[in-house]
């Protein structure tokens, strides 16, 4: 989906990866708030599907939430960086609305500078 938001900007495309389906759905729901339309987020609980999505969709930011074991997490990050080095990979803490938009705002503002 590439619908411009109310300010005429393209939404930020976010790929979310986390093992807990309920938390993943919460994060996706928050990001896909259509009233703001700042983000377009897709997500998966499976690292392999994350690779597939990353290869076939526009992605501006990768958000890793919870539950990936260390080896899987490291392997996925390495693959993502090799595939497209400029895409920020953000560890999301807190699992909900508390820090989500703060973290993304910080990362995106620093990527631009």
């Amino acid at each position, binding site marked *: 989906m590439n619908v411009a938001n109310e300010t005429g900007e393209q939404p930020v495309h976010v790929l979310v990866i986390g*093992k807990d389906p309920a938390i993943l759905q919460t994060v996706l729901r928050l990001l896909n708030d259509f009233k703001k339309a700042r983000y377009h987020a897709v997500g998966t609980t499976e690292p392999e599907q994350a690779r597939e999505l990353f290869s076939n969709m526009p992605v501006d930011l990768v958000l890793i939430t919870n539950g990936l074991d260390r080896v899987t997490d490291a392997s996925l990050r390495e693959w993502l960086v090799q595939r497209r080095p400029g895409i920020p990979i953000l560890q999301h*803490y807190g699992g*909900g609305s*508390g*820090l989500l938009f703060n973290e993304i705002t910080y990362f995106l503002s620093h990527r631009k500078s």
Partner: protein
Amino acid sequence: MTVTILHKAGDRFHVRNERADSYFSFSFGDLYREDRLGFGALRVLNDDVVSPGAGFGSHPHDNMEIITIMVNGEITHSDSLGNEGIARPGRLQIISAGSGIFHSEYNKGAALSANNLQIWVYPNQLNTPPGYRQADYVYPTPLNEWQVILEPLGAAAGDPATGQNAVTQENTGKLRQDAWFNLARISKGTSLRYPIKKAGNGVYIFVIEGRLTVEKETLGRRDGLGVSGDEAPEVFAEEDAEVLLMDIPMVNLL
């Protein structure tokens, strides 16, 4: 000691709705200032007054240590692990969100508001088993001494191996970070020095009531000050005061 951040009470973020009147010392939710993204591992300090009968319905968390300290009133907790509990002055609660937990928090009192400090600390390990713990501490705290109410999990002999779902009757709670929380009631005209527990940690001081001077800064009710350095900070009570002091690793996770 060097003052690194000063948060005056009136300069906090303010959100008011039917369920709560909240002041945020740090950026939270949609509210963002880049100079308010935390103090080391301390990321959130929300001063919530929850309306009678109101609260926060079930919602998720992960990878965060969430501490509730009651100033007055009671908050009833329930979570997806099957835990239920009540936090009140003298009984704090800690949610180790770890790999994921859903919880709700309500003020079930029909008439009285409940004032709590909800504090989030980044954990020192990701994706641990989630858990809920309570700890009973002496309240009101003794005069003119620091009372440790929260310390690192594993700091004391006999700590549970995981910390999962251990409702303790001890006077010190446990969290998954090299952090110590201390409360003190300080009489007017008294100085208290705080020896930092771990080299490299900083100290964030939050005035619950009263007026203090720390490092030449005068702090009033609900002001906060972060300091770092090797020396033990000294707190001087300009008037009778109650203070929360958090001894926090100065990690930067952004």
